[in-house]
């Protein structure tokens, strides 16, 4: 499923709204999720999961072409942890 499939599905489920409202809603949600992480915030969606940032310490890397050493500065990367409901729904049925 892609972003545009998601917009179509939501427009179908919300027929009282204009199609462009579903599109705008998806944009607002995704921009807010991204913006929150970019500001260093956390996201917690009950039943879905949480997004946070993981720290990556500085390290010495290598340019794969030239073999030169390069300093890679510390950074944060987005991290997702699935919530209980999502985890249970995607897992194989208990045997």
């Amino acid at each position: 499923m892609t972003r545009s499939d998601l917009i179509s599905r939501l427009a179908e489920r919300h027929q009282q709204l204009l199609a462009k409202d579903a599109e705008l809603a998806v944009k607002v949600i995704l921009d807010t999720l991204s913006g929150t992480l970019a500001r260093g915030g956390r996201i917690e969606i009950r039943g879905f999961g949480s997004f946070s940032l993981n720290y990556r310490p500085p390290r010495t890397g290598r340019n794969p072409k030239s073999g030169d050493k390069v300093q890679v500065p510390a950074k944060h990367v987005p991290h997702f942890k699935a919530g209980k409901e999502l985890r249970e729904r995607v897992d194989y049925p208990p045997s």
Partner: protein
Amino acid sequence: MTLTKAELADLLFEKVGLNKREAKDMVEDFFEEIRAKLERGESVKLSGFGNFQLRDKPQRPGRNPKTGEEIPITARRVVTFHPSQKLKSMVEKSYSFGAAQNRSPR
């Protein structure tokens, strides 16, 4: 600062002009559509944000940390999230330093 469904619904009310009920339903449905696709084994690709994918993990040996008893960790299917290049660079650019309070406990 933690973002939840309630704040997302408020934003849909303010920025999209949905009424409170519609805004709450829209947020709920947004995440439910993604869950439903993943449940059916489909990956979800949200351009500019990231991809949710499924990973099948084989059974592996584990241990009860309390008793030390060996117990197998059963085969399972899990969700992984891969942030887009755009999201990764947004986070790197605006949030590179001095953020110890947000390191997630692992």
